[in-house]
Structure formats: C-alpha cells, structure tokens
C-alpha cells in the first residue's frame, strides 16, 4: 500500500525565528538579564503597595494579605538575585521592538471590545455595532499594518471569517452575541 503524491513546489510564508547573534545594548543597564531583574523588583514593589491595605492575619488564621505580601517579597528577592547573578555577564540587547507592527494588533483587540456591544467614553459613545462590524474591523485594522499585505486577499478572508463566526457563535452555538442590531435588529 503506498500513496503517490506528485512532486510539487510549495511556497510557504511562515514567520521564522532566526537565531540572533548577541548584540550589546546601548546601555549596560538595558541588558536583557538586568532588565528582567529590575522588572521583577518593580513588580514586587507595585504588588506590595497595591496590597498594603490587606490584613496580614485575622482571628481565624491567615488573613487576605499574607500570601500576596509574601509573594511580593519573594518576587523582589528573586529580582535582586537575578541582578546579582547576571552582574558579570556580558549584557545582551533585547533586540528591536517592532512597535509599528505590534500596535495594530493590540488596537485591533480594543476596537473589537469597543464596537461589539458599544462603549461609553463619556464624551461620546459607540453604538452597538455587533459582530458584523467588530470582526472585520479588527481583522482589517490589524492586517493592514503587515508589511507584505495584499488588501484584496485580506478583505476576502475578513468577510469569510465574519460569516463563519456569526454562523458558529450566534447560530450553531446560540450565544447571545449581537450580530448587526442596527440592520436586522439582533
């Protein structure tokens, strides 16, 4: 039993993770390991401050503040240890931060959040636009930022996916997500 598959040429568009050679940071304080340590310390301090009003112990035993405070202190200690242990290492840069590529994805998520069932910003409010608007809006917004985007394909995929999602979530699963209240009433 054997399957014969004809020889074919396949063009694959996949994100690769090329092994990056270590690059020194512009400032040794911005090296990856040291930065990780400081982030941990900062996080621990923040947690200590945010949880400072919680009681440590109560009559019944452990209070709501004991574990959060203990964890905050542990995470700070780990951060300090991280800084000390990696002190003599040659600092490595964290690489480039592709803010231009990242922002559209994050904003896309927010766009969906604001439009699916509307949002009140105080000064103005977004009406309930439903899945028929929220889904393609966030897809196109995020996709448009890609370097090699072809708009035609993106629009087609956005339309197909919107239809699939509405069919799946609203009709097959019966979730009460709004589809297009401004057009068809639900």
């Amino acid at each position, binding site marked *: 039993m054997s399957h014969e598959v004809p020889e074919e040429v396949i063009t*694959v568009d996949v994100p690769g993770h090329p092994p990056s050679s270590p690059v020194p940071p512009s400032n040794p304080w911005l090296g990856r390991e040291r930065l990780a340590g400081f982030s941990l310390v900062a996080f621990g301090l923040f947690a200590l401050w*945010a*949880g400072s009003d919680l009681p440590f112990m109560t009559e019944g035993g452990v209070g709501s503040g004991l574990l959060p405070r203990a964890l905050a202190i542990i995470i700070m200690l780990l951060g300090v240890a991280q800084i000390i242990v990696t002190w003599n290492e040659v600092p490595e840069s964290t690489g480039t931060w592709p803010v231009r590529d990242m922002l559209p994805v994050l904003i896309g998520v927010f766009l969906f959040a604001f439009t699916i069932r509307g949002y009140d910003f105080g000064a103005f409010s977004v009406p309930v636009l439903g899945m028929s608007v929220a889904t393609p809006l966030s897809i196109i917004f995020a996709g448009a930022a*890609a370097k090699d985007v072809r708009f035609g394909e993106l629009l087609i*995929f956005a339309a197909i996916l919107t239809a699939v999602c509405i069919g799946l979530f609203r009709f097959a699963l019966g979730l009460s*997500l709004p589809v297009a209240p401004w057009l068809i009433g639900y």
Partner: protein
Amino acid sequence: MDLLSNLALGFGVASSLANLAFCLIGVLLGTLIGVLPGIGATATIAMLLPITFQLEPVSSLIMLAGIYYGAQYGGSTTAILINMPGESSSAVTAIDGYQMARKGRAGTALATAALGSFFAGSVATFLVAIFAPPLTTIALKFGAAEYFSLMVMGLVMSVALAHGSVLKALAMVVLGLLLGMVGTDVYTGAPRFTMGMNQFADGLNFVAVAVGVFGIAEILRNLEDEHDRQVMTKNITRLFPNREEFRQMVGPVLRGTGIGSVLGILPGGGAILASFASYTIEKKVSKNPGEFGKGALAGVAGPESANNAGAQTSFIPLLTLGIPANPVMALMIGAMIIQGIVPGPNVVTEQPALFWGIIASMWIGNLMLVVLNLPLIGLWVKLLTVPYYVLFPIIMAMCSIGVYSVNSNPYDLFAVAFFGLLGYIMSKLRCEPAPLLLGFVLGPLLEENLRRAMILSRGDPTTFVTRPISATLLLMSLAILVLVFLPQIRKRRDEVFTESDA
C-alpha cells in the same frame, strides 16, 4: 475485571455518534493548528473554551483533549516536511525528520512518526487507565495540608523542568501566583489588587490570561521577524516503511514510550522534555551515533513516541489530583470547573462515564489520527501556503470573539491586550510563560488549601511538616530546588536543552 468493565463503559461513552464527531473535530482542529506555526495548542484551546460551554461536559473534554494530542501529530508533520516544528515538542523531530525528507524519505519519516505516536499513545492511554484509579484512592486520603504541599511540589517541578534560567522560571511561578490573587478574597470578601475596578472583582479571567500570553504574544513575536518566503520541493512517495525500517523502529519506539510515559506525569511541559530526553538516549544507545542529525530513523521514531506518550500521561495528575501538568492541562481544569465538575480524585467515582469516556476517546482519537493524517498530508501542506498577514488577523479576531463570549465583558478583552503585551515583554526578557500560567491556575487553590490547613490546625504552621505525607512532599520540593540550583546539574540540564537548538 474492574479495568475491563471500566474501559467498556468508557468506550460506550466515547463511541456515541456525537462524541465520535467531537473527537474527530478535535483531532482535525488539533492537527490543523499543529501544522500552522503561528498558533499553538494552548492558545487554540483557550480560544475554543467558550465554544465548549454549550456542549455536554464529556463531549467538550473529549474535543479539547483531541486538540491537544492532534497538535502533537500536526506539529511533527511540518517539522519533517519543512523543518518548521509547529509545536515546541516536535522541535527534535525536525532535526532528523527534515534530513530524511531531504533524502527523499519524507514518506517513511511521516509514517514512522505516525505509527510511533499511535503505538505510544495506545500504551500511554492504557497506563492512564491502570494507574489513575489507584492514585485517586491515595489522593482521597489527602487533606488540605497535603494538597498545599503537593501543589508546592508541582510548581517546583514545573520550575525544574522549564527551559532556560531557573531563577526566572521561579519568578514566573510567583508572578502567576500573584496574578491569581487578583479579585475578591473568598474568605473575607475583601477586594485584592482590583485597582478599584469592579470588573475585576471575580479575578482575572483565566481564558483572557491564557489567550493573551499564548495567543496574542505569539503573534507579536512572529511579527518581529521578517517573513521568509521559502520555496521547496517535496516529493512524498512510499509512505509505508519496509520490513528493515520496521525493525529499526521497534527499539526507539519502545524506549520513547517508556520515557515519555514517565516524564509526561511530571509537571512543566512533560511532552517537550520527553522528546528531548528520548533523542539524547537514542543517540547514546545507537550503534552509529554519527547518523544522528543526518536523517536517522531512530531520531524520529523515539522522540515522536515519547512526546505522544507524554501528552497522554500528562492527563494522570489532572484526572486524579486535579493538578495540571502543563498549561494545556491547566486549561482543561478551567473547562471542567466551568462545566461544574470539581477536578480531583472524586471525578473517578462521581463521574465514571466522564472519566473513562475521556480515556477511551484518546485511544479512538489516536486511531483517527493515523487513519486520517497520512492521506491528508497534502492538504495540511497546502494550508501552510496561507500567508501570515491573513493568518494573524484571523487568530486575533478568533481570540477576541472567544474571550468576549465567555462573560460579554469588554474588560476581559483589555486584559487580553495587556497580557499579550506582557507575554511579549516576557519573551523579550527570556522568561517562560508556561510556569506563569500554572502559577495563575494553582494560586487560588494553593491559597485556599493553605488557609484551610491553617484553620484546621488552629493557626499552627507546623501542620505542614508534622503530617508525614505533607512533610515528605515538601522535603522533595526542597530537594528538587537544591538540585536545580547546583551548578553541575544546571550545566547538564542546559546540555539537554541546547540539543534542540541544533
């Protein structure tokens, strides 16, 4: 015999038409996302959790489990064909599998991976069936103090088995525990870390955290790299191995199954570690180790069996103790809780149909994968041609809809964006997200058991060291921690992991 009647019950449940269908959907979806490199099993299961709320508990868990082990299969397909492991556990397969493909033996490599996985999956499923019930009887004797110590050990193990820096993995566990504290304190009703926002009174949405850290962060990471268009020629002929190749497979498959079954039980990415360990061992026992890296059959058969066996046995701690061995199992706990099932030793006695149904479905699912995947390889490879600029907006939109449909709470989506960014920053600082998610899931359970144990002992903290089981577990955790910090062990551990970067 008990085991047989239990298995019969399980197969009865799993072979109902609806459950077969959900199993099929699960393994197909799993293969699909295993093939696509931009998205992993964790993110997919997180995204699909909301969909499963509408299903029967057993159907939803069967489907989610199918996605998990289906992804292991799919990941190895792309690892072999285009040297692009779709899942991290198939990274090892890519080393020799891709070399085999380059030598025109892609078909053999794929079949070896599939058959090895199937054998390992069957054996491991059987092991789950044998070992789960006795373990639950032990677990039923556990009190709050024992559970606390067990979770501490689970978290410590996940640190020990994490990739890279031990210190940072430990910090990630603690960070996860802290994030798990957000919300209303169950004992006193006091809001904690909610920053005055009522929307976070119920705590951070678990689905939102998982989707952010694994789904969105992965997109951000992929966008960073330039997209390479690679043109390659694939010639898939003769799929079935010949007699000689079968003979070569037997040893590695058996060893891989054994290693995978044992390591899968351990917390912290058992399947990944299993495939690395199996590769190292195959290289050691091989008569001609020089073949490795140049297309050795054993280098595919061993790791593939190991990662699939590990994927199956990682269900043991979940089903018996209610403790997740890896992020995917953590999501399964989430799914069970949402369905109203309390994960833990009571599942076997209270929900035998569910318990044995899931186990039986794993075997059925593995069979489906072998039967379906080999003929469908052409289709999977075609799917790889979908460009990433189309793929990532779709993943993002599915993440948004999935998370939003859980509670219809826009704040959950803000959390997705926040945790996406956090996950990305973590990867920039080389911190692993898996320990964080485990900490996040176990945090509330850990605290509850700590406080319950303290109440039971009337505020005496020595209860954790005077109860023998609890003391043993804590001692073992301490021993593991000391071991991983010992420089010599750390060096060896690095060696095992650098193998994968070859």
